[in-house]
C-alpha cells in the first residue's frame, strides 16, 4: 500500500491532469501567484465581514473562528456524480425504511439481519418514537452522507449524518465567494448550480407538513441560540428560506399546537426544522433540565400536529455501531445490491474482531461509537506508542463502545499555499432532501480538506478547511 502513490483528483496517480480539472489547470497556470494570494486574503475578508464563523466549544470567551477556505475547487464530472447520487438515493431511501421499521414492527430484527441488542441497548434508540407515524412518513428530511474516495471509481461512505447534519451554509457561501472572486472560472467551466438549496429545502419541508392544514404551512428553524457553534448556519438558512428563526423560549403549546410568540400574539408553526438535539427537544419528555426545547412538543408531535425535521430518534440510523450493518439494511429494504460501499468495519463488541483490532492497533482507525467531530478516536499509523497503549486500555475496558476501520488511502485535491499547488486529503458531504415528493441531492456538497500535510482529519474543529465543490455539466 505504501509504495503506491496516492490518488490525486487533479493529477491522478501519474501526474496527468484528469479531465474535469483540465480547464481549471489552464487557468491556474496563467495566473500570477501573487494575485491568487491576494484573492485568498480577499476571500477571508469576505467571510469575516459576512460573519461566516463558527463558535469553538469549551473556550472561555465565545470565540468566533473562520473555517479556512481554499480557492482551488474540488471538481467532479457529471458521470461520477450520477453514479454517486444513485448510490446516495438508494442509501437514504433504505435509512428511512429502516427507521420506520425499527419504530414499528422491527421486521429486520425478526428476519435475523440485525441483532436485537443493537436496537434495545442503543442509546440512540428513542422508545418514545415507537408506533409514532411522522407526517408524510419521512424520518430524515435532511441527510448529509460523508464520502471518501480512494480511486477513479471508488467511493466509500464514511458516515451517514441522519440527525442534524451541518455545513450546508459553507457549501453555499463557498460558491458565492468563488463567484465573486473568479467569475471568469464560471464562464469557462459549466458548473451545476447549488444556489437553489434554500428554496428546495423550504419546499421539501413544507411538503412534509401535517395533514389537513388550511393555507401554506408555517415553517421555522429552531436553534439552541447564538452561542451554538453552528448559529451562523441556522440564521443563514432561516434567512435564505424566509422563515422565522426561533429558540425554545419563543415557543409554547397553544390549543394543542406549537406556537411562536410574535409581536401580535402566538402564531401556529406547522414544520419545525430543529437544530437542537433530541434530548433537549422537550424537557417534559426527555432531559428535564433543557432550556433549549419546548415543553410538551412531543405530545403535539405524537398527535400528528407538527412536523419535526429530522424526526426524533433518527440517530439510531447514523450510530457508528449500526453503520456496519447499513449494507445489509440497504439490501433488506430495497432488495438491491448496495451501490455505495461501506468502509470495512470491525465491531469491537465481537470477540474475534476485538482480538484482530487489538493485534493491529497501529494500522487501524478506532472510533467511539457515539463520538463525533473527530474526537475520541485513534489514528493508528500516526499515533505514538503511548497513545496506542492508552487507547488499548480504554478499548479493552469497553469494547462495545468502539469500531475499527483500516486507514484508507484517501484521495487528495491540491490546495493553494506558498509552495503553489500542494496535495491534501479531502472528504465530501453531499446534502440530501427527502420529502413525499421525492429525494433531491444538491450537486456537489461540502468538501472538507485537511490542511496539514499528510493529515486525514478534516474536521473544522481540528484545523480542517473547506473548498468549493463543483459538479460539471456534461
Amino acid at each position: 500500500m505504501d509504495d503506491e502513490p496516492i490518488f490525486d483528483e487533479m493529477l491522478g496517480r501519474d501526474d496527468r491532469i484528469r479531465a474535469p480539472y483540465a480547464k481549471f489547470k489552464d487557468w491556474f497556470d496563467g495566473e500570477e501567484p501573487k494575485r491568487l494570494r491576494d484573492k485568498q486574503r480577499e476571500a477571508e475578508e469576505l467571510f469575516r465581514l459576512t460573519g461566516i464563523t463558527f463558535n469553538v466549544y469549551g473556550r472561555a470567551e465565545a470565540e468566533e473562528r473562520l473555517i479556512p477556505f481554499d480557492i482551488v475547487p474540488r471538481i467532479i464530472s457529471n458521470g461520477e456524480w450520477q453514479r454517486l447520487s444513485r448510490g446516495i438515493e438508494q442509501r437514504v431511501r433504505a435509512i428511512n425504511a429502516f427507521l420506520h421499521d425499527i419504530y414499528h414492527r422491527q421486521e429486520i430484527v425478526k428476519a435475523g439481519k440485525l441483532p436485537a441488542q443493537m436496537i434495545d441497548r442503543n442509546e440512540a434508540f428513542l422508545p418514545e418514537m415507537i408506533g409514532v407515524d411522522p407526517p408524510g412518513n419521512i424520518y430524515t428530511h435532511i441527510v448529509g452522507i460523508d464520502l471518501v474516495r480512494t480511486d477513479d471509481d471508488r467511493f466509500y461512505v464514511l458516515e451517514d449524518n441522519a440527525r442534524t447534519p451541518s455545513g450546508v451554509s459553507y457549501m453555499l457561501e463557498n460558491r458565492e465567494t468563488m463567484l465573486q472572486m473568479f467569475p471568469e472560472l464560471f464562464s469557462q467551466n459549466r458548473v451545476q448550480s447549488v444556489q437553489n438549496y434554500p428554496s428546495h429545502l423550504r419546499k421539501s419541508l413544507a411538503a412534509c407538513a401535517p395533514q389537513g392544514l388550511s393555507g401554506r404551512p408555517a415553517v421555522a428553524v429552531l436553534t439552541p441560540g447564538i452561542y451554538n457553534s453552528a448559529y451562523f448556519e441556522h440564521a443563514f438558512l432561516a434567512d435564505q428560506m424566509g422563515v422565522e428563526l426561533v429558540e425554545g423560549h419563543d415557543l409554547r403549546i397553544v390549543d394543542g399546537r406549537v406556537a411562536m410568540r410574535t409581536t401580535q400574539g402566538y402564531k401556529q408553526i406547522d414544520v419545525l426544522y430543529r437544530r437542537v438535539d433530541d434530548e433537549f427537544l422537550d424537557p417534559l419528555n426527555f432531559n428535564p433540565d433543557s432550556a433549549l426545547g419546548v415543553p410538551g412538543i412531543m405530545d403535539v408531535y405524537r398527535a400528528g400536529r407538527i412536523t419535526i425535521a429530522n424526526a426524533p430518534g433518527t440517530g439510531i440510523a447514523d450510530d457508528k455501531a449500526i453503520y456496519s450493518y447499513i449494507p445489509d439494511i440497504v439490501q433488506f429494504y430495497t432488495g438491491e445490491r448496495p451501490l455505495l460501499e461501506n468502509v470495512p468495519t470491525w465491531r469491537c463488541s465481537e470477540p474475534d474482531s476485538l482480538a484482530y483490532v487489538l493485534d493491529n492497533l497501529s494500522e487501524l482507525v478506532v472510533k467511539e461509537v457515539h463520538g463525533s467531530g473527530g474526537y475520541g478516536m485513534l489514528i493508528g499509523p500516526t499515533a505514538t506508542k503511548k497513545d496506542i497503549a492508552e487507547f488499548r486500555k480504554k478499548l479493552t475496558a469497553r469494547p462495545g463502545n468502539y469500531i475499527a476501520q483500516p486507514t484508507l488511502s484517501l484521495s487528495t485535491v491540491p490546495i493553494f499555499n506558498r509552495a503553489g499547488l500542494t496535495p491534501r486529503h479531502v472528504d465530501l458531504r453531499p446534502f440530501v432532501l427527502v420529502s413525499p415528493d421525492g429525494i433531491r441531492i444538491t450537486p456537489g456538497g461540502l468538501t472538507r480538506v485537511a490542511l496539514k500535510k499528510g493529515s486525514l482529519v478534516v474536521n473544522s474543529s481540528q484545523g480542517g478547511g473547506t473548498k468549493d465543490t463543483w459538479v460539471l455539466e456534461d
Partner: protein
Amino acid sequence: MLGKTANGLFWMYRYLERAENVSRLVETGQRIALTRSGESDEDWQSVLQSAGVTAGFHDHYDAVTKDTVIDWMLRAKGNPSSVLNCIGGARQNARLVRTALTGEVWEGTNAIYMGARDMLARKVGERDLPNILRRIRQQTALVRGATHGTMLRNDIYDFCRIGTFLERADNTTRILDVKYYVLLPSVMAVGTDLDNVQWETILRSVSARGGFRMEFGNQFEPRDIASFLILDRRFPRSLGFCVDKLRSNMEFLGREYGNFPRAHGMVVDMSERHLSRDIDEIFDYGLHEFVQETLNCLGALGQQIEIDYRFYE
C-alpha cells in the same frame, strides 16, 4: 414577527445610537479641553454625567482625569455604556435578529464591531483619538444609511426606528438634565466666557452647533438653545423631532397590526400635551421639572413598548 426579534431590533438600534452619542460626548470633552485655557477636570466630570455613566467609575479609577474618562467611556468592560460595549451589544443583537436584517445592514454592523474591536483593543492615545472617533461615527452612519436604503418599510423597520429615537430622545434629555442650570435666564444680558464655553459644549454634545448657527447666528442665547434642543422640529436630535418620529413609527405599526396599544397612547400624549408648550411656558413651568418629567415619560414608554409587543415572556 417574533417578540424576541422586535426586542433585538429595538436594542440593536438603541445601542448603535448610544455608541454614537457616547463617542460624540468624548469628542466634545476633548475639544473643549483643548481649546480652553486652564483645563479643569471638572469638565470631564460633567462629560461623565452627560453620558450618564458615572456609576461604577470610581470602582475602576482613582481620579477623574481626561485619560480615565476617555478610557471609561470608550473601552471599559465595566461600563455597560462604553462605546465598545454598545457596539458589542448592537452586534450581538444583530446576530440574534440576523434574519430580519438585509445583508448590507448586517455587514455594516459587523464591520463596526470588527473595527472597534481592533481600534479599541488598547488604551487610545491622544493622537489617535480624533481618527478613531471619526471612524466610529462614519461607520454608524453607514449602517443608518444601509437601513434607509435597503430595509423594507414594515414592522421590522418600525422597531429599528423606535429604538433609535427613544435612545436619542433619552440622550438629548439627559444632557439637558445635567446642564439645565446653565440655560436658566440670567440677570446678565451677555454671557460670560464661562457661559459661552458651557453653551458651546451643550450644542456640540448633540451635533447642534452648525444647525443652531444657521438659525441664530453666533449669538448664544440660553433660551434659544433650550428651544432649539427641546422644541425645534427641524433639528433631528431635538426632543420634539424624536417624539414626532416615535409617534409616526408607532402609528405605522398600529396601522399594520390593526391595533393601537397603550404605548401608542403614551407617545401621543407626550407629543400633544407635554411638548405642545412653547419655550416660555416651559421656563415658567420650570426647566428642570420639565426635563425630569420627560425622562420619566421616556422610561415608561420604553417599558410599555416591551409589554405591548411581547418582547419577553
